[in-house]
């Protein structure tokens, strides 16, 4: 029965009130804003805009792959440029920026009960440097020779040679400069996110009461701060190789019958640096998705998350392990077998915390009061997609299985499932979930359902056949596949089918974008807490939250974020800032 003990002794405030920068004009309020929420929207809009470019690039690639020989304007060079820019934009400028810069900025201060990020000015600089990085990247489309076509991994020596599009033109230089800018900008934001979570929480908000969204974004940011340096160094060194003629990554090499000036460098060194960044990067986009999806599932199933502490430790464990698996991307680089053995082992060990998370999501759903809202649909779709993508990871994580599958469409299908489709599904779910807080209005449900089903089923129709094509031995990154012997007639029909599906799924995203704009004016009024959720961002006095987030008094936190359907409570959710304690709560002691 109800057992409400008197309010806990509230710990006194350790952190003095934050001095906020109060905007003086329209410019400092909406453009050069130091408010994390405005910065979040700026980040999200920029990431979405450049992400649309990457979406169009994927259509162009699918046009060529599905209907080779039909489109004259897609030359082999152009095709490689499409591949490269599609990959780089999606991984770095869309996913990383949207999860950390977008969701991180919006949700961290609100969820931990802070007025803003700890250093709003630095946070603002972070966005503007990110924007500059995006502009430099986009400018390479208009530069002589076009953008780089080195593949998103930018492997030397080919990345800076004549045969590769942009290799001896502007393309690769602009790409490297853009990445360096991105990393500088991200570091400014990332430091803010980490310090805000560690040092600026409100009273009562221990780390073990944080919503898992914050745990995911926080851990991913820490990883990014340690992984991006490797990419930074790799970019600087390759920039020197290209611009100054050094030979960090360039071995002695003959091009078009001519001995180049380079010699003595190690292309493998680049691969190590790149993947020391590249593998954690996979989890930099996956961990925020893990965190967000935990909150979506718990809220929309009206049940506390199963095994909260295990979920936290799994996030931290995955983050730590992901720094010792990078060479599983390099099994075919000629490494020592013991080396491969080590990396295969660590890779497979990651399956343990990951499986814990999947089981806990499923157990959270178990006997829950599941509301099949649009965010919930996306969250459920994420679980199945992530399991599917993860299972093919077991194939690719083993050296002997990976070697024949390496550089086939199987790999493309694998990473699109696990780090393309799965996190994007979470992003969609999260947007449907938090849009009411950002705008005060709900997204249109009918359009949302349409968007979900087309995207979800379409993604499977795109990527399931791709596994099959890959197992047949069809290599990735080939401009024209009909002439190769591995491509049978029926497999080619499948390829055309994949392309058509890709167009359909792509157009469904336009419905989504329309929904985003339409609902600002015409969506249903949401109120402050439409999902009846417990976390602090739903308890703000205003919706959308005003500058400073919480009105006069910061909220005080009395419980964890997952008190749903507590027996004896008046409602099926207890906000984190509601005083009193319930014996029947499942909060870990």
């Amino acid at each position: 029965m109800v057992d409400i003990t008197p309010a806990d002794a509230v710990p006194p405030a350790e952190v003095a009130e934050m001095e906020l920068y109060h905007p003086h004009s329209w410019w400092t309020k909406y453009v050069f804003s130091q408010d994390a929420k405005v910065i979040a929207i700026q980040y999200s809009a920029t990431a979405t805009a450049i992400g649309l470019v990457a979406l169009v690039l994927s259509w162009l690639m699918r046009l060529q792959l599905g209907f080779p020989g039909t489109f004259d304007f897609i030359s082999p060079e152009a095709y490689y440029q499409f591949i490269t820019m599609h990959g780089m934009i999606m991984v770095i400028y869309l996913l990383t920026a949207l999860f950390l810069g977008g969701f991180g900025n919006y949700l961290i201060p609100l969820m931990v009960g802070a007025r803003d990020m700890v250093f709003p000015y630095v946070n603002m600089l972070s966005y503007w440097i990110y924007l500059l990085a995006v502009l430099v990247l986009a400018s390479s489309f208009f530069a002589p020779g076009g953008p780089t076509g080195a593949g998103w991994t930018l492997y030397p020596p080919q990345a800076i040679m004549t045969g590769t599009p942009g290799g001896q033109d502007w393309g690769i230089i602009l790409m490297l400069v853009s990445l360096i800018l991105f990393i500088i900008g991200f570091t400014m934001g990332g430091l803010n996110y980490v310090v805000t979570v560690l040092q600026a929480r409100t009273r009562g908000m221990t780390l073990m009461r944080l919503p898992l969204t914050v745990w995911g974004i926080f851990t991913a940011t820490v990883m990014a701060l340690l992984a991006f340096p490797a990419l930074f160094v790799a970019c600087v060194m390759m920039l020197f190789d290209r611009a100054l003629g050094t030979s960090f990554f360039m071995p002695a090499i003959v091009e078009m019958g001519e001995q180049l000036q380079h010699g003595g460098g190690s292309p493998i060194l680049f691969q190590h640096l790149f993947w020391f960044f590249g593998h954690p990067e996979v989890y930099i986009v996956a961990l925020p998705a893990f965190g967000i999806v935990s909150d979506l599932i718990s809220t929309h199933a009206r049940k506390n998350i199963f095994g909260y502490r295990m979920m936290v430790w799994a996030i931290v464990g995955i983050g730590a392990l992901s720094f010792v698996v990078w060479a599983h991307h390099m099994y075919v680089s000629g490494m020592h077998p013991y080396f491969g053995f080590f990396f295969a082992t660590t890779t497979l060990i990651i399956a343990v915390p990951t499986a814990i998370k999947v089981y806990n999501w499923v157990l959270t759903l178990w006997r829950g009061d599941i509301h099949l809202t649009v965010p919930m649909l996306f969250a459920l779709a994420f679980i199945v997609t992530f399991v599917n993508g993860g299972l093919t990871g077991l194939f690719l994580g083993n050296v002997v299985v990976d070697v024949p599958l390496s550089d086939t469409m199987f790999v493309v299908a694998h990473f699109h499932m696990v780090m393309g489709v799965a996190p994007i599904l979470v992003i969609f779910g999260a947007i449907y979930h938090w849009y009411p807080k950002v705008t005060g209005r709900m997204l249109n449900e009918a359009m949302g359902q349409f968007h979900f089903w087309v995207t979800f089923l379409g993604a499977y129709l795109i990527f399931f056949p791709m596994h099959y094509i890959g197992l047949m031995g069809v290599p990735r990154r080939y401009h024209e596949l009909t002439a190769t012997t591995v491509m049978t007639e029926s497999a080619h029909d499948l390829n055309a089918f994949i392309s058509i599906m890709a167009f359909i799924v792509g157009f469904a995203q336009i419905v989504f974008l329309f929904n985003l704009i339409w609902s600002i004016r015409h969506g249903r009024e949401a109120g402050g807490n439409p999902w009846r959720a417990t976390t602090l961002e739903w308890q703000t006095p205003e919706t959308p939250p005003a500058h400073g987030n919480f009105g006069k008094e910061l909220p005080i936190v009395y419980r964890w974020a997952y008190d749903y359907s507590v027996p004896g409570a008046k409602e099926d959710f207890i906000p984190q800032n509601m005083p009193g304690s319930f014996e029947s709560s499942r909060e870990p002691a």
Partner: protein
Amino acid sequence: MADTTVTHIGQTQPRPAGLQGVAADWSSDQRAFKNVSWGKAMMWIFLLSDTFVFGCFLLSYMTARMSTRVPWPNPSEVFALHIGGSNIPLILIAIMTFVLISSSGTMAMAVNFGYRHDRRKTAILMLLTAALGATFVGMQAFEWTKLITEGVRPWGNPWGAAQFGSSFFMITGFHGTHVTFGVIFLIIVARKVWRGDYDTGRPGFFTSRRGRYEHVEIMGLYWHFVDLVWVFIFAFFYLW
């Protein structure tokens, strides 16, 4: 801004022992690090990230040095100065290192006087630190000039592996850039100390935050880090 030191600990319950106690301390209410302000925490985490940058630079240099099949120039000869009729190995680097380490000493004294609110001494010691840092950069410029006149280029040198010049210019250049930024910010903070901004609580121009004498210490953290990195560069590049 947050207080530097904690005046009271929020938790009243007894804490668990062992590893659980460690976890409880880390995850404790409001702040993970009780006596660390936001600015200091941010600087520490930035330095951790920067450590990875320098770590990657140095590891890449070591990889290049170990895997090249061309002989590596002998640092004792390359970095020797011809003084008084004989070649003295590493003399310039020794002086540079001495200057930089000394600047760490003056910086530490500046921090001490900063916390005593001794504006004059703090500012003078910070400017002295900046002067020593500038001297270091100046000597580095001299060293670069000397090597360039002897024919060392990023893409090659007269004595052996081309990666010698590329690694040298890249790593010392990156470190020198850090020192230069440090000098600039030392001067800015010294000016604020001199003007008494930290006594009057004058808000920052961009941030509208009030500065505190702790900024001197945060500045010092960065400066000591740059010195520490130099020790590693010195060991791995010049002494190897």
